């Protein structure tokens, strides 16, 4: 077994002189093809975790050479050639975008949207036109524009933006290939599965590779921001970058890639190979086991070992998320951000539009509870037609229930829509940004008015629909004794509660650590609210980010919190944690 120190030494050794960089360690006598080779080890940054064992395959870039520019250059003709090449490039990029969407995912496919935009960028086009006007042929103009813009990006000294120089290169290579008469870059025609070794890969090269054959990526250069890294993470393939140059003679050799430890071992010893295989199997089995055991929890009541039931609800912002929430076993919706319709339209939605949207979600949840939060907008979440004044301090401004109480018709339209939707399942209504019992009483009066109107109109609704508030101001938590007399439930919005309690703007990156370290005052306020509402026979849930913090699940169970509402991707992990709680 090797130690990290040895590997670091070897790393320097290989960087100094990779050509002779074969280390005399264990001989490998088992495989015919590696008989003559010695073990070699490399170190780099693991940018996508995991382990892989397979043969190394070196990626060879097709060389693109600009045509010799000895022929006479006619600017008008060169401009036409360039424009046609750009048109073809646009089509190719659109095709790559479609492929990436299908093979990898939406976020990663965006890389090609960026390519399309760069290609159409007026500054880029201007540079190209200037180069041609200066008497260069189309090929040289492309090279010239690449120089200008890659240099600009590199000089920004920002690791992420510097890595974008590779995008400019990718687009340029594409244009040069098209100008040279090649149609589309050829996908690497390799057979079998392998660990791919390359100097670096452009996004197009990465997308065109047959992903099912790639066990891992190793690149000489690159950073955690390079495309290879981003794509490897998206595909869940182990990747190691910045290993320095690797001798091409090692092509086809057996290697062990351990991206977790940041090592690549070529021609490993037999014992090493066996240990690696076992570790890999253990890890795979663990990952499968975790996913399986979490999936098995779906439908199981989330009760702690001590017998306390905590429902696991989902936070959603639109109807489309309902299916995902149900698939991951949500017991209900703990927070439906009802703003979505207001945000997507250009004018106030009608009661009918709101009712239809809420009814759909309530009935899709098949009798499971859906807590609908009334409008939570304000100067920080602007909607043009609301015509709200600009505020210096929007988080402490005219927002949420403050607007609703000042504009009663707006509020009542929404309350009526929610009431009507309640006839189609199990809905509850929740008011945000409350600071006093008086505010709650005013909301309740309007709520009761709506009910009376609906009864007169002969419109159906659930007369026992629960009415609750968000506890997201320190005032609401401090006054929870009085407020709990007016409501059926509390739901704690920990994001706002934390920022108001700590007087720390959550958007301010300089205060992130302060917020991270001071959860205790927030927890004590929650504890106070929990005691108050339980004293009245009501229930309390948590729908802010803290609900998904697995370090706090036990504390929440101890307080007797009845429900945790988290984003869909966190549902299974939180359920698992609740079942582990004492």
């Amino acid at each position, binding site marked *: 077994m090797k130690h990290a120190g040895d590997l670091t030494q070897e790393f320097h050794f290989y960087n100094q002189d990779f050509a002779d960089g074969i280390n005399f360690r264990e001989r490998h006598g088992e495989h015919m093809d590696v008989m003559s080779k010695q073990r070699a080890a490399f170190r780099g940054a693991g940018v996508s975790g995991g382990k892989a064992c397979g043969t190394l395959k070196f990626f060879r870039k097709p060389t693109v050479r600009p045509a010799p520019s000895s022929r006479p250059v006619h600017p008008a003709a060169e401009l036409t050639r360039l424009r046609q090449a750009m048109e073809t490039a646009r089509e190719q990029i659109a095709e790559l975008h479609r492929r990436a969407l299908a093979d990898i995912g939406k976020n990663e496919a965006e890389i090609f949207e960026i390519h399309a935009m760069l290609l159409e*960028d007026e500054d880029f086009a201007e540079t190209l036109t200037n180069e041609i006007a200066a008497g260069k042929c189309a090929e040289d103009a492309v090279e010239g524009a690449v120089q200008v*813009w890659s240099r600009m990006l590199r000089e920004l000294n920002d690791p992420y933006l510097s890595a974008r120089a590779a995008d400019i290169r990718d687009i340029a290579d594409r244009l040069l290939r098209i100008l040279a008469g090649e149609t589309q870059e050829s996908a690497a025609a390799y057979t079998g599965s392998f660990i791919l070794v390359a100097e670096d890969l452009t996004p197009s090269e990465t997308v065109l590779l047959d992903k099912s054959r790639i066990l891992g990526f190793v690149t000489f250069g690159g950073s955690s921001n390079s495309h290879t890294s981003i794509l490897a993470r998206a595909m869940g393939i182990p990747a190691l970058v910045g290993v320095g140059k690797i001798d091409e003679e090692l092509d086809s050799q057996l290697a062990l890639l351990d991206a977790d430890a940041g090592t690549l071992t070529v021609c490993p010893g037999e014992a090493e190979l066996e240990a690696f295989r076992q570790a890999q199997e253990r890890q795979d089995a663990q990952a499968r086991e975790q996913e399986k055991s979490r999936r098995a929890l779906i439908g199981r009541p989330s009760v702690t070992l001590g017998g306390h039931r905590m429902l696991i609800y989902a936070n959603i912002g639109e109807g489309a998320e309902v299916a995902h929430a149900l698939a991951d076993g949500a017991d209900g919706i703990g927070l439906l951000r009802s703003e979505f319709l207001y945000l997507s339209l250009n004018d106030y939605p009608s009661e009918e539009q709101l009712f239809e949207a809420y009814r759909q979600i309530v009935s899709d949840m098949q009798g499971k509870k859906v807590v609908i939060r009334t409008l939570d907008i304000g100067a920080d979440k602007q909607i043009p037609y609301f015509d709200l004044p600009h505020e210096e301090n929007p988080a402490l401004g005219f927002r949420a229930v403050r607007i609703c109480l000042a504009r009663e018709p707006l509020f009542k339209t929404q309350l009526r829509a929610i009431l009507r939707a309640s006839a189609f399942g199990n809905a509850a209504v929740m008011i945000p940004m409350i600071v006093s019992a008086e505010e709650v009483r005013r909301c309740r009066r309007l709520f009761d008015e709506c009910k009376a109107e609906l009864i007169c109109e002969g419109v159906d609704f659930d007369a026992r629909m629960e009415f609750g508030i968000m506890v997201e101001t320190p005032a609401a938590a401090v006054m929870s004794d009085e407020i709990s007399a007016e409501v059926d439930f509390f739901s704690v919005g920990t994001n706002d509660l934390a920022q108001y309690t700590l007087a720390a703007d959550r958007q*301010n990156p300089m205060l992130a650590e302060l917020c991270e370290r001071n959860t205790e005052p927030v927890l004590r306020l929650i504890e106070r609210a929990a005691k108050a509402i339980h004293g009245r026979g009501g229930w309390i849930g948590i729908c802010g980010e803290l609900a998904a913090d697995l370090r706090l699940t036990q504390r929440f169970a101890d307080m007797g919190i009845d429900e945790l509402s988290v984003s869909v991707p966190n549902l299974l992990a939180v359920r698992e944690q609740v079942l582990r709680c004492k």
Partner: protein
Amino acid sequence: MKQFTYLIGDENGMHARPAGKLATYAKRFVSDVSVSANGKKADGKRLLSLMSLGAAKGAALEFTITGEDEEQACQTLRQFCEENLCGEE
């Protein structure tokens, strides 16, 4: 003329994706959109120009919007910043 300032909270700063999206949004308006940061000024409708600001996390983006639909452009772009550059998922 409308102006506002936004402090980037996103770990990656204004990288290619948000810059691309921002340019797409800005292009929907007839108003001129200029964005300044780090003492540099960029055309809000051009991707490379926006990227060349090199605006990292913590940088203050100053938007100046001038034109007939400046009011709406200002609101849309401000909302864009909050949704794409605040650094919270």
